[in-house]
């Protein structure tokens, strides 16, 4: 495994919250992508953490675009670079609201058209930039400002929606496992056509955890099976080693939920549903990896 480069493309002057794993993710993404890269960013926390005009904390070009529009913007950009014979990486860096909810039409279109780009959804499971309102990615039982009693619906299964587009490369990751994340971004960028990486990005203020706990919570998500790390290259699924180890003896789900204020007072039935969803997901992934479906 290659060492993660020392070069930084995300300067230390970002305006992100303390303990922000979205900016941590981006740091690794840009290390993997290098300087010949353009980021396309729809409305999300990353719109804000660049800083305020005329300053920017990023040392690659960032094109900010309207909420629903990221994947379509990348489509135009990717085709334009291709028309000039340039190999510049076009990476969409979007939150879960901009991906799962308002941006899913443009995303679906860009994937279907075989756009040569990498779409990264960093998923903090709510509309973080506007102060934690429920999104389609919010898990059942989580309190947000618009689900003060805990969300009663399940998290939308973005990965299976994306998988239905049969794209060349798809993966999940979390910055709690940076080498795994780094390698996946490298692979995605080396694969022609559309690639998609879904990142679990624990959010200290939104998830009501201490700022120094976000990496720990990311690890707990993997160890409890709440978040499974895998990649699918040209239809071949491989569960990544941190999740492989976790699956041998999963940590109890309560360990992940209890450290987060957003799950305070979650009902037993909601925990039960979350547990069942985890088991179903793991079983399906294991079957697919074994070539049984």
């Amino acid at each position, binding site marked *: 495994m290659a060492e993660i480069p020392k070069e930084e493309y995300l300067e230390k002057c970002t305006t992100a919250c303390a303990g922000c794993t979205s900016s941590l993710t981006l740091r690794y993404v840009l290390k993997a992508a290098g300087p010949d890269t353009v980021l396309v960013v729809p409305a999300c926390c990353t719109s804000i953490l660049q800083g305020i005009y005329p300053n920017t904390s990023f040392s690659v070009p960032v094109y900010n675009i309207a909420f629903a529009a990221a994947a379509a913007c990348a489509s135009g950009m990717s085709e334009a670079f291709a028309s000039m014979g340039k190999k510049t990486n076009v990476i969409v860096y979007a939150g879960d609201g901009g991906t799962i909810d308002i941006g899913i039409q443009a995303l*679906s279109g860009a994937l279907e*058209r075989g756009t040569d780009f990498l779409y990264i959804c960093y998923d903090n499971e709510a509309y973080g930039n506007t102060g934690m309102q429920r999104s389609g990615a919010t898990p059942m039982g989580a309190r947000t400002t618009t689900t003060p009693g805990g969300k009663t619906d399940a998290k939308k299964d973005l990965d299976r929606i994306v998988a239905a587009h049969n794209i060349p490369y798809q993966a999940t990751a979390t910055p709690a496992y940076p080498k795994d994340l780094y390698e996946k971004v490298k692979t995605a960028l080396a694969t022609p056509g559309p690639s998609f990486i879904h990142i679990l990005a624990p959010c200290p203020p939104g998830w009501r955890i201490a700022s120094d706990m976000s990496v720990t919570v990311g690890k707990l998500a993997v160890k409890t099976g709440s978040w499974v790390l895998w990649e699918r290259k040209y239809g071949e699924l491989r569960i990544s080693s941190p999740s492989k180890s976790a699956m041998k003896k999963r940590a109890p789900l309560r360990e992940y939920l209890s450290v987060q204020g957003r799950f305070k007072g979650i009902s037993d039935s909601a925990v039960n549903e979350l547990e069942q969803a985890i088991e179903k997901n793991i079983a399906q992934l294991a079957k697919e990896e074994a070539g049984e479906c």
Partner: protein
Amino acid sequence: MLTVATGNKAVAAAVKAAKPAVVAAYPITPQTEIVEQIAEYVTAGEMDARYIPVESEHSAMTACIGASITGVRSFTATSSHGLLYMHEMLHWAAGARLPIVMANVNRALGPGWNVWAEHTDAFSQRDTGWIQLFVSTVQEAYDTTLMAFRIAENTGILLPVMVNLDGFVLSHIMQSLETVEIGDYIPPMVLPHRIDTGNPAGYGTLTGPGDHFKFRWEIEKAMRNSPAVIADAEEEFAMRFGRKYGPVDEYLCDDADVLIVSMGTLGKEAEVAVDNLRKEGIKAGSLRIRWFRPFPELDISDRDLVVLDRGYSFGFGGVLTDSIKSRYRDSSLFSVVAGLGGQEVTYDDIAEFVRNRRMGEEYWFGVDA
């Protein structure tokens, strides 16, 4: 080369000549023939463009934005609901100072479904920062589309340009068309703020109350520069290709006592009305507005105006009427709302508007007695 074409095919032929690097396309009646024709050019290898068959008009405009910011020429076409679906991205294109060219085939909005000519679609995008031009013949659709690229890409402007043509009436009519060899009429596109990974920058970064207005003012400055640039594009076009255009198309206006003011194909129909009215001794003229934004200076003093509005601002009045009245407060004006949703308006009808004009009043054709 002299040929025959529909308004839609004329636009497509002009786009082919302008050689955009990227065309984003989504079908909508009555625009579809434009993107179909471009698809044929691209498939046949007659056009070296990347054709992006997007999944919505919102994405069509966004893909053009993504392409344009890299410094290449881009084009799309739409109509009616498609234009409105793009709305936020139209503001984005202008705000980002991207010289995108778009053909908009003017069509009414639902409900109920109506695919016929009306200007409400373009009017509802009036304040987006786009230059809006309105054409009246197949030839003018071709010529103006070529000019649009030159105007948009002028580094003193860098604003998107919308070429408007009436749905079906012009988009589907077949008239003669003379295509040209454009040579260097449209210089290579040079976007000063194009994305350059060797010189990274933030685009559209969070901009505070102390700066935002400065960018809006820059748009208005470009708009104020645009009349000279559009006029230059028209003069250069006339010099090279022999067809002359201006901010307005005047027909027998010099000695006229009453001017029929309109946009699009109604302006041509009005010329027939003018001929007939003059036979009766009524000194009428036709003033067809070609530039809607920037709105041109008009020579209308001391004449009655009969303004034909193919779009309306509910609770206020005709949109073209509004633009004229707010510029020329002392004008003597009869506002006629006619042609909505493809309502048939003949030269006889227009002549009747002139004969029965009631200055200072508004008249809904087909509704009012």
